[in-house]
């Protein structure tokens, strides 16, 4: 069995980069989205979030930042569950991209 892209335990890797950043508002919003959907709303499980992340192709997995992976997975799972469609997601993203501010 080949290792999943996320299954890194024991592999050689670089020195630990000890720098830290304060979470940005957009990152907190994605975190809260998952906490709500997996908690109170019981709409998706953390395991499903992980499946969505772990099924990203290796380039996407390595290139995307942590919460970028999360929202990529969350939207994929929501489409799978037919709570949103990929067309309405794309249309809304296109609209949002033309706004001066995001919210």
């Amino acid at each position: 069995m080949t290792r999943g892209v996320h299954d890194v335990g024991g592999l050689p890797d670089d020195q630990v980069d000890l720098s830290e950043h304060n979470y940005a508002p957009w990152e907190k919003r994605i975190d809260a989205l998952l906490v709500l959907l997996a908690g109170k709303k019981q709409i998706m499980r953390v395991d499903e979030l992980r499946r969505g992340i772990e099924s990203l192709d290796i380039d996407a997995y390595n290139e995307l930042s942590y919460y970028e992976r999360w929202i990529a997975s969350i939207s994929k799972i929501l489409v799978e569950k037919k709570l949103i469609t990929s067309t309405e997601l794309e249309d809304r993203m296109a609209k949002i991209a033309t706004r001066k501010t995001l919210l």
Partner: protein
Amino acid sequence: MPHDHPHGPTIDAKRLAHYQCMAVAVQELLTEKGILTDKQIEATIKEMEARGPALGARMVARAWIDSNYKRRLLLDGSAAAEELGIPVDGTRLIVVENNETMHNLIVCTLCSCYPRNILGLPPDWYKKTAYRSRAVKEPRAILAEFGTFLPDSVTVRVHDSTADMRYLVLPTRPSGTEGWTEQRLIELVSRDSMIGVRTAKQAES
């Protein structure tokens, strides 16, 4: 010489904008469908911001001064957290104790499972592959990168977390703190000492 792109945002900025738009779009669509409200998102963000290492430090300092609490903490971390009014929302919390012969280190090799109810959101390095890959293979080298050097007589034990089972390290109480109040002891308990990459801060003489 790399080609310069003076016009337009960089690839990174474009990518970030793409996923930020996605996040806003998902939130708006779910709100319009009545699945959640903006208020609930804001409230959840606030709840999360209220979580942080200060909560874990209270548990550790209490265990240092109260051996009965320590026994309960090591037996059932979730119950011991709830006892101090810290909700753990159903996750199983396992507390592992450091002493003169044993040092514990926490990692999540597969993703980023972390006792977030007790310590807040994890630091960046905890989520990146360098730490996740190497912690289980060469924990002493990892510890050295944090400036933590343990004698060979100390066994290092590494715990790999899962979504349903989170670990918290009970660091060794620093010497010279006999008779200290709980409040004073709390100051010595850093986030990193509860992950196990460092020891508790030493008492200043």
